[in-house]
């Protein structure tokens, strides 16, 4: 089963999902939603990788997908651990209050 939809549509879809992720990342004010939007952006990038892999009939894109989800798993685990520690410290996860390093 192979697609007959032009690759441009796949790339535009990936771009749209990335846009939603970036919007969410910039407007959300708590750390959990930020991490979730980060996952959304990584997933959008993965979609572009798979599209390019199919376009060039090469497995390289699939391998890159594999590496990206490895990094995504590490990143979400680290982020969530940091957030749990922050919550223990401050009893909230509001990013507006997290200004210790803001200068």
């Amino acid at each position, binding site marked *: 089963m192979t697609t007959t939809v032009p690759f441009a549509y796949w790339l535009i879809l990936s771009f749209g999902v990335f846009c939603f992720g970036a919007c969410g990342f910039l407007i959300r004010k708590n750390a959990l939603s930020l991490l*979730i939007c980060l996952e959304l952006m990584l997933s959008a990038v993965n979609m572009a990788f798979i599209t390019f892999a199919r376009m060039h009939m090469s497995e390289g894109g699939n391998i890159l997908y594999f590496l990206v989800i490895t990094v995504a798993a590490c990143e979400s685990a680290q982020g969530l651990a940091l957030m749990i520690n922050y919550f223990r410290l401050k009893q909230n996860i509001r990013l507006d209050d997290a200004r210790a390093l803001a200068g």
Partner: protein
Amino acid sequence: MPDLHHILFFSFAAIILFSAGMVAFRPRPVESAMWLILNFFVTAGLYVLLGSHFTAVIQVLVYAGAIMVLFVFVILLLNLDPRELGTEGGASWSSLVLFMGFLSFVLVALQLATPDLLKAPAALPEGSTFGSVEAASRELLTKYIWGFQLSGIILLLALIGVGLIAYRKAKVPQVKGAQA
């Protein structure tokens, strides 16, 4: 007459975009996480349409399974009320618009430079193994072996790091009197 692939693609794309919007704009993190799970499932469907079956399975198992379970677990562990989540809004819209404008410029330039992108893609050649587990793992374990090893090291380091960050010394409870 629109063929099956177009119908499937556009219905999947509609679900994906809708759920992505819900992920970005629903106020509570647990709703975002649930919509994100739907998004990942339908994205796996799109990968099947592209003929990349291995990544479709990985998407469901690792993304929708493992990573999102971690998220939902932490959300339920913290059990936040709206006060602890903070207020929404106050986005820096100008930088957002600038960023998106630049990205879409790159996309348009890419498609102007590559008119083939708008043509219907050629069918997979007869006997092609694109996207199968065998082809993907053969490439992974021969050509991309260093990336594979490095990803293993990254996972190990992340495991150690999470342990170091989240570990807290158990305090020995002070026994006060004989009550309880």
